[in-house]
């Protein structure tokens, strides 16, 4: 049923029972004797399928269900419903053989021993994963080399910069050369240079070992740089599974015309060409439908005193924000668009199937976002 896929999630659900705590002392007492519970659906009916060697970005706001999904896929949480298969294992039952094939990196948690040099954690993991001398030397050398951490391995972890620490975390997590990487916010709190170093490393590791990578991040740059495909999740539900570029086409099929004007013009004059998003002094930004870009810019140049004009895509952050905003207000619309929901990702790569969302059906989210 897996068909050689690396990760299969089939209608995964995870419901937590949370104690409802009423405010005040009286509430506290009531909760003590007759606790009330509320069900929280952290993940609802999530299906997707990731092929070996794919790098997939997992996006969603805080509390959307990303980490819960990753915990289910790594066998740390038992799903309330549905089925997961990772590297041919049921993550929950896979035990040690399964765990030797995966790596879990949590950006806000560390496994490095705080008071010791990272080298000691590497030695510890060598014993934990039962690596032979040869394997250890080979893997260690490769990681030290590609992460550029030769100079910091013998310094106590507490003295390392955050970027150095994260690179060492990755070395410790990947020492056993896993074929599946679950990276939850690996660049959290890092400066730009450090983020870029991590990205370059993940790209290189994926290329060299054909490893499958599922990556969550707050930084859109991580995702745009690494993952051609994204999964978007919000409130426990999978909203989108597909390419980044197609996502922009769907949600915000617009281009931005960024203008520098020779003199100030009225907003009304600009609005004839498209939606004005910025207008200050001599600068303006207008959004126009993608297919009208050429015509609109030609008309603009003819009608207004344009000193400079550039055409850009809206930043992916905004596109995603629109996706969430649209989902929040028009949940039912989103449901109606769900043509191929049960297909566990089988339609991926096969183009838009018959009866699945047509371009017109995809229009609503854009409209509601505006």
């Amino acid at each position, binding site marked *: 049923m897996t068909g050689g896929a690396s990760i299969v999630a089939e209608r995964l659900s995870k419901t937590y029972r949370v104690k409802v705590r009423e405010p005040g002392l009286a509430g506290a007492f009531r909760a003590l004797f007759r606790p009330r519970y509320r069900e929280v659906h952290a993940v609802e009916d999530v*299906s997707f399928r990731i092929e070996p060697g794919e790098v997939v970005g997992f996006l969603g706001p805080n509390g959307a269900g990303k980490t819960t999904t990753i915990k289910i896929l790594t066998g740390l949480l038992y799903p309330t419903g549905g089925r997961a298969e990772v590297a041919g294992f049921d993550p929950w039952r896979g035990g*040690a053989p399964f765990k030797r094939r995966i790596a879990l990196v949590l950006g806000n948690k560390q496994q490095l021993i705080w008071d010791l040099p990272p080298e000691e954690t590497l030695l510890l993991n060598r014993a934990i994963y039962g690596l032979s001398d040869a394997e250890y030397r080979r893997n260690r050398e490769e990681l030290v080399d590609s992460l550029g951490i030769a100079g910091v391995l013998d310094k106590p972890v507490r003295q390392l910069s955050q970027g150095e620490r994260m690179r060492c975390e990755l070395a410790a997590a990947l020492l056993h050369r896993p074929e599946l990487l679950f990276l939850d916010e690996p660049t959290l709190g890092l400066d730009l240079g450090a983020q870029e170093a991590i990205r370059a490393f993940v790209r290189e590791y994926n290329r060299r070992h054909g490893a499958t990578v599922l990556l969550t991040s707050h930084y859109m740059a991580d995702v745009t740089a690494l993952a051609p495909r994204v999964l978007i999740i919000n409130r426990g539900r999978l909203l*989108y599974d597909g*390419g980044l570029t197609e996502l922009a086409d769907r949600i915000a099929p617009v281009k931005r015309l960024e203008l520098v004007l020779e003199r100030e013009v009225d907003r009304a004059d600009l609005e004839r060409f498209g939606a004005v998003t910025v207008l200050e002094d001599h600068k303006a930004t207008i959004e126009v439908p993608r297919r009208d870009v050429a015509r609109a810019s030609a008309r603009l140049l003819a009608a207004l005193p344009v000193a400079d004009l550039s055409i850009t895509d809206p930043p992916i952050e905004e596109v995603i924000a629109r996706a969430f905003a649209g989902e929040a207000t028009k949940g039912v619309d989103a*449901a109606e668009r769900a043509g191929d*929901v049960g297909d566990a990702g089988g339609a991926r790569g096969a183009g838009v199937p018959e009866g699945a969302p047509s371009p017109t059906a995809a229009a609503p989210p854009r409209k509601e976002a505006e």
Partner: protein
Amino acid sequence: MERWVGRPAGDAGADRRQSGDGAPTPTPAPARPARPEGAGWPARLRRALGVLRAFWAANLAEELEYRANFLASLFATIFWLGMAVLTAAVFFRQTEELGGWGFWEVVALLGVFNAIGGIVDAVLRPNIGRIVDLVRRGTLDLILSKPVDAQFHVSFRRLVVWRLADVAFGLALSVFALTRIDRAPGVDAVVAFLLTLAAAFAIVYALWLGLMSFAFWFVDVENLGILFDALYEAGRFPVSAYPAPIRFVLVYLVPIAWITTVPAATLTGRGGWATSLAAAFVAVAALVLSRLLWRAALRRYTSAGG
């Protein structure tokens, strides 16, 4: 290329019908934590020992970073032992015996009390005692993602090596007390003592694991270690010194009696083989129970029901 997903609530049945390959979603059987695989016991034991060596090698290095602890720890031990013996001496100015035990027998018991306390401080408190912390900080997630039994990892990752001085000093005090009562134990008594001492370690471990497993249900339990300390204080005197109801509790409910009284009694020739075997039995039962409790706790943590 892309796919929009999402569905109205309550439409799950319809979705199932149009599911990709038409197969109904299989319902997984109730979960059981996977057993670690391995080529039989010897291989697993060897691997476990390898991991243990790596744990403690790392830890020794860690402790050496704080060498000053060693001296402080040493002074604390000597001071504590001195105070304990003095307190007992004050008692014995008023009485000839405590629950049927003479002064030097009580001192031998204090030695055992101190030795076990040393194990608690060296191994249990820094490991199992930090479970709450591991849960809170999420480090447990990383531990669970490793191909090593989580209980083993959580129990033995650390070793506060200096506290082992308590074990050495405690046992030395017991031996010294023995010389004063002129009751040199035979080889069989020494074997029986070692057996009951091992059982005592196992029982203390099980108590800690059991107590700390409750952290998974009541995460806001701040310091269960203090609860243990309070209970353990009762082990400072032979159980025979307590009134019958408390004795019952210490023997059968909270097995503190097996931790200090029984090894000390065996050492001073008061316990027979039956007692030693009973201690071994209690130890095995406690280990099994605590393991079950730990598994239930993990099932709760991972929400696998139970």
